[in-house]
């Protein structure tokens, strides 16, 4: 992977693009990859995005409270300051490292980045003029337009943006009841204690957990390296739960990266890699599903659809799954066909290395409030992001009940829509901005290759750059590793524009 290789890949990409009558610069601009100066010679993000600023700021006057100071909350706050003349905005966020770059956790988990590469302080990103309350909201009272914090402070608002993110529900798993629930950042000592040492357990869904994953991965790669012919191979298991999760591709990404590290160490022959997803497909978009299936076959991965992890026995190193299948029922004379019955049973699977992707849930204070819906997430109009019941409440990011992947790629499209609509609502206009459901998942398939899975409500590939979206490319790896973080941290959080 030297410059010569990079140049070859870029030349290949240019060839594909020129067939479409497009230069690399135009393609990147079209894709909105403003941080991709690496490829284009663009000197900074601000110059690329300056045409996005409004000609005239709105003169509306209202108090906006944003609960949550992660990517969605801070980007929204910054963009509101771009669009409102005299903004009165308050962010309520208790976690000091809430601005950390979560998409990098996969890379930390595979030892490509260090944990310090993703740690970002909240204070460095809260926009000028925006008030920060470093407390946790424990009660939402949308009827009286106020929230209450854990320190007893009651904060009233005219408009509320819920951007709390989600929690990882490790305690749901039998054997990990002591783990509790965890946010990606913050003090997760309880979780790591429950996971234990020398148990082969790991999980990249918290920042500290991703660093620990790399330690555990190295330990078991070493064991795989020492497997002699005829001996049992080291079993690496990767799970995908029955709930929406942050970045649905991540459980596969860490599996692909483990595979890469095993190959790099000359230990692949001593390892078996198994994927246990709760669902019946590798990806919601059939084209990407097919591409991933081919990759799984090529890399000799085993897969077991419709298996949901429910129990972990750390002592015996046994993972228990709720396995589901369907059986043919009696003949239905009206339908003139056979019924299908769903069945399930528990299945025990021994493991050496177990990477857990936990259920993701809305924080209790949101789920149990009047703002939470049946699933706990905040029910919003999926296009306008306005709450279905409270017209002065909006939700953005992972906590919003939007039937689309919970990724930074989704937030990148959502926060602009939300700001347009909240300003329109304040001005008494119709909400015209609509989230089209676009999201992107850079699916890492090895160290050096990424398949850029882009799609929207149509659940069909919607590549912004006219290249075959099912092909794994080095150029997207470069984008994932070098360009996406500056685009996110600077373009979205610092500028509110990317």
């Amino acid at each position, binding site marked *: 992977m030297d410059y010569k290789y990079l140049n070859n890949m870029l030349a290949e990409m240019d060839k594909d693009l020129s067939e479409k009558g497009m230069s690399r610069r135009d393609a990147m601009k079209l894709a909105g990859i403003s941080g991709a100066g690496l490829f284009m010679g663009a000197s900074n993000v601000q110059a690329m995005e300056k045409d996005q600023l409004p000609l005239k700021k709105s003169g509306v006057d209202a108090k906006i409270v944003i609960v949550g100071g992660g990517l969605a909350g801070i980007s929204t706050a910054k963009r509101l300051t771009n669009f409102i003349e005299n903004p009165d905005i308050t962010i309520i966020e208790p976690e000091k490292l809430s601005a950390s770059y979560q998409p990098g956790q996969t890379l930390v988990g595979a030892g490509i980045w260090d944990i310090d590469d993703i740690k970002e302080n909240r204070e460095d990103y809260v926009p000028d003029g925006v008030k920060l309350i470093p407390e946790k909201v424990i009660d939402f009272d949308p009827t009286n337009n106020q929230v209450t914090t854990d320190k007893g402070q009651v904060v009233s608002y005219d408009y509320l943006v819920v951007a709390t993110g989600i929690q990882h529900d490790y305690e749901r798993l039998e054997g990990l009841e002591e783990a509790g629930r965890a946010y990606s950042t913050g003090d997760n000592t309880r979780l790591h204690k429950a996971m234990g040492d020398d148990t082969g357990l790991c999980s990249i869904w918290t920042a500290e957990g991703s660093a620990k994953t790399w330690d555990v991965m190295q330990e078991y790669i070493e064991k795989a390296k020492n497997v002699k012919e005829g001996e049992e191979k080291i079993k690496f298991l990767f799970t995908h739960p029955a709930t929406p999760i942050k970045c*649905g591709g991540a459980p596969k990404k860490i599996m692909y990266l483990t595979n890469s590290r095993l190959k790099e160490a000359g230990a692949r022959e001593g390892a078996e890699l198994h994927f246990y997803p*709760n669902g*019946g*497909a590798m990806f*919601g*978009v059939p084209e990407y599903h097919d591409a991933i299936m081919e990759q799984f076959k090529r890399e000799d991965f085993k897969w077991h659809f419709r298996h949901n992890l429910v129990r972990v026995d750390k002592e015996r190193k046994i993972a228990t799954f709720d396995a589901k299948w369907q059986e043919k029922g009696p003949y*239905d004379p009206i339908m003139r*066909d056979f019924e299908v019955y*769903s069945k399930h049973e528990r299945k025990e699977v021994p493991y050496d290395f177990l990477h857990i992707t936990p259920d993701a849930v809305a924080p209790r204070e949101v789920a149990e409030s009047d703002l939470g819906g049946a699933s706990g997430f905040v029910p919003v109009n999926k296009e306008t992001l306005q709450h279905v019941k409270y017209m002065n409440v909006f939700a953005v990011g992972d906590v919003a009940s939007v039937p689309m992947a919970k990724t930074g790629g989704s937030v990148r499209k959502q926060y602009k829509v939300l700001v347009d609509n909240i300003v329109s609502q304040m001005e008494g206009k119709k909400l015209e901005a609509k989230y089209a459901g676009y999201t992107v998942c850079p699916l890492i398939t090895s160290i050096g290759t990424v398949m850029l899975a882009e799609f929207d409500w149509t*659940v069909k590939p919607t590549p912004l750059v006219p290249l075959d979206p099912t092909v794994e490319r080095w150029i997207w790896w470069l984008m994932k590793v070098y360009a996406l973080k500056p685009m996110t941290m600077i373009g979205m959080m610092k500028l509110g524009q990317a």
Partner: protein
Amino acid sequence: MQVRFEFAIYDEELDTFELDENVYSFELNEEQVETYKLFKEVDLHLYNWFKDSKIFNNWIKEKVYPDKIGQKIVICDIEDISFRRYYFFKVTSADAHYEYFKKLFNIFHELDWQDREEVGANILEHLVIKRQELIIELKEEQAEENTIASNADTIEIVE
């Protein structure tokens, strides 16, 4: 050539379909036979062709359901082609129907956690709309003539 039909009667208040277990035969002329052969590979085209055919509609009103003017009916079967899945679909229905609707309505397991029940509920929502497109209303002849006359008047005014 005779084509066999089975129908169901739509109850608008209850939004349910009652199967008429009788089989009715409709005679096609030579030209219609050619069209039938062309459309029978694409079931919804075939359905819509009959639904929009005035001769077919008159046959239903005059021969099949002369006492049901003002009611709504649907075609359940045309020869060996069944449309029952549109009216009697259940979430637990056989895979063939389930997969058919997923494809028809562009529903995929777009989110890995969705199970059959959730996707089935989604299918049912789409079906409510689709079924309305398939309903044949047995209108009074007089009403149709009035509409034609009214349209003709409009054209005259425009000219």
